[in-house]
């Protein structure tokens, strides 16, 4: 009875798109190879999705790519060779971490450049402070008695 119920239910939801990424039948029996496949999958884009790796995506294309990655690994490819193979086939677009080249230089160097520019600006400010405070120290004078009395008044007011 239970299995009948299950079959009926399964038939009704068969048309529903699946919502699971890596499917059980894709998993390789070799655990080390599977781990490499999963790591690679996280670096590769599902090209019909919006910003999803093939590891996360449920699209049929992502499934095909996952199987392809596993086939290449089983054939003895290194991680590098698998990536090269996919880039040759689908272009740079398939990589979620773009390779460093002249057209991604701004992308990769931007953060470091930003930090460097900011750091330099802070250094300039510090220098300016040093010169200013040195100048202030040279021109500094002792307080007059009236000024000292006024200062202690102000401080007392503040503490109240």
């Amino acid at each position, binding site marked *: 009875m*239970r*299995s009948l*119920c*299950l*079959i009926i*239910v*399964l038939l*009704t*939801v*068969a048309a*529903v*798109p*699946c*919502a*699971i*990424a*890596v*499917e*059980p*039948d894709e*998993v390789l029996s070799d655990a080390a190879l599977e781990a490499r496949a999963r790591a690679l999958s*996280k*670096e590769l*884009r599902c090209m019909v999705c*919006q*910003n*999803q*790796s093939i590891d*996360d995506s449920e699209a049929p294309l992502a499934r095909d790519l996952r199987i392809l990655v596993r086939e290449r690994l089983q054939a003895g490819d290194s991680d590098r060779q698998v990536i090269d193979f996919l880039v040759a086939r689908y*272009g*740079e*677009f*398939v*990589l*979620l*971490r*773009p390779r460093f080249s002249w*057209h*991604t230089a*701004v*992308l*990769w160097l*931007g*953060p470091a450049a*930003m*930090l460097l520019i*900011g*750091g330099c600006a*802070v250094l300039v*400010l*510090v220098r*300016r*402070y040093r010169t*200013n*405070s040195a100048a202030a120290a040279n021109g500094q004078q002792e307080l007059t008695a009236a000024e000292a009395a006024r200062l202690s008044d102000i*401080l007392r007011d*503040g*503490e109240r």
Partner: protein
Amino acid sequence: MIAEFGHYALVLALALALFEASVPMVGARKNDPVLMASAGPAALAQFCFVATAFAALTICYVRSDFSVLNVFENSHSAKPLVYKLSGLWGNHEGSMLLWVLILSLFGALVALFGGNLPARLKATVLAVQASIAVAFILFILITSNPFLRIPEPPFEGRDLNPILQDPGLAIHPPLLYLGYVGLSIAFSFAIAALIDGRIVAAWARWVRPWSLLDWLFLTLGIAMGSYWAYYTLGWGGWWFWDPVENASLMPWLAATALLHSALVMEKRDALKVWTILLAIVAFSLSLIGTFLVRSGVLTSVHAFATDPTRGVFILAILVLFIGGSLALFALRAPMLKQGGLFAPVSREGALVLNNLFLVSACATVFIGTLYPLALEALTGEKISVGAPFFNATFAPLFVPLLIAVPFGPLLAWKRGDVLGVAQRLVGAAAIGVITVAVVFAMEGGGPILVPFAVGLALYVIAGALMEIVERTGLLKVPVATAFARARGLPRSTWGAAFAHAGLGITLLGVIGETQWSLERIAELKPGQSISIRRYDLHFDGVSTRQGPNYRDLAAHFTVRRHGELIGVMEPAKRSFPSRGTAVTQTALMTRGVSQLYLSLGDPNPDGSLAVRLYYKALVLLIWLGAVVMVIGGALSLSDRRLRVGAPRPARSKAALSPAE
């Protein structure tokens, strides 16, 4: 009739906003008190009319009035009331109306509580705020009108996208928008200061609490969105570096920087020009975020080009406000009086360092998000920038920041002593180092970064609490004395401790989730079991349940730990006949701060069901950390000295009290 009423109210709000953007501005230039004073009532009236328009659309949704196109496209008569309401902001037109509602709400708040502001500043601020409202109300009326009718109304609506029918997503957009749009206040104050050519004392007093308030909402909104993604999308990810997420992260980073630099400005009268620039940048990033999400440019530059009306309009708003404000900044900033300078080693210096790293991190996200768009637009070449890129660039920027976090609050203003502070942090550092060793021993190899990251997280938490421990004399004096002292500490001190500890807690959750989570993927038939860690899940079978507008296919699992029954988990496939789509309902079981996470995949012809089971280690800490941060922010906000309109003597006293 209701829809037309709302439409008309929105047009009137536009007229009021136009008035408010121009007349008080003229008044401020001519120093005419009557013209300047007109800003307040205009802001209140504008808010009332926008609220009327919003209420009208709400009524259309509640009544399921399908003669209104927007309601027809996003609602369904069988939908529960809460999702009828959230459906209003679950779509483009409605969410823009919510955006404008919050914008005018903040304007009205300035009008109501701005009694202590100089008349000229208040008038200018409200005029700038109103000019933003003019742009966005025009945008709604011209390109995204939610009040359009359908000539022949259908009987039933198309329903809201099922994955949006969720309590988390019902409150996520309003929270996020409160944060996004709240930054407009800091922006309006910055522009007003630039127009005036001077920064009055009231400026700093206002900007800090306001930026704190919208930082609170942003933090809550982002955390809520992240938790929603975690339990909805079915594979347990909680942050994807998706452009839509980045669009909210960038203003958050900028707002965090703003919060800290406003502190320097308030306490030490320094960094004024920088704070103004940050206020402009933070709101600009909110606008860019709105543009990214609302224009469709993210899908592809080409998708944007095919239907550009909305995108071009928002782009024009962007160019006008961002370009205009930056140009104004370039013109006027040199005229502003630079505040006091300070020694590099001091609390101010630490806060500058904080700003440097936060702004660099923000720039990283900005470049990573927009680079593919720019490259495609310029050369036609398509590249992807995804999670691996951001992880590789963002983390190195955050590690030095996290190391520096405990130093900040312990350093004295004006002139600090790094060595002294380092000595006071020895305890926290020791906790960190011991953790590294313990984790390293437990892991028995593996990536060295993991023990280091866990140690860093505990060091941040311990360092954040160090100031409290020191100032209450805990461990040295009797507990009762320490408790009395703890009560006497300023709330802002508690706030900083909580916020920084929250950061460490979130970090701990992130490491736990990414490093120690387990995954099982299997095909199960009823009667079979699957186990993970010490938990055994027995698949009892499936059943169907009928909801108001959906049907669930639920799988029943009994969960045992060491053979002892501890509960049931019922993940489901929820199908919505109105749209012919389905979503996965994951089942979560909380064990301490970790969770068991179970989601269903496809059923197979042989009667088995694909399931994904995770043990998500420490995952709840990610969001608990955010909650602790928010509590810290709220404590700081409730500090008497920061309260808007607090009497001045309290402030001057604080300014004179040494190093805290």
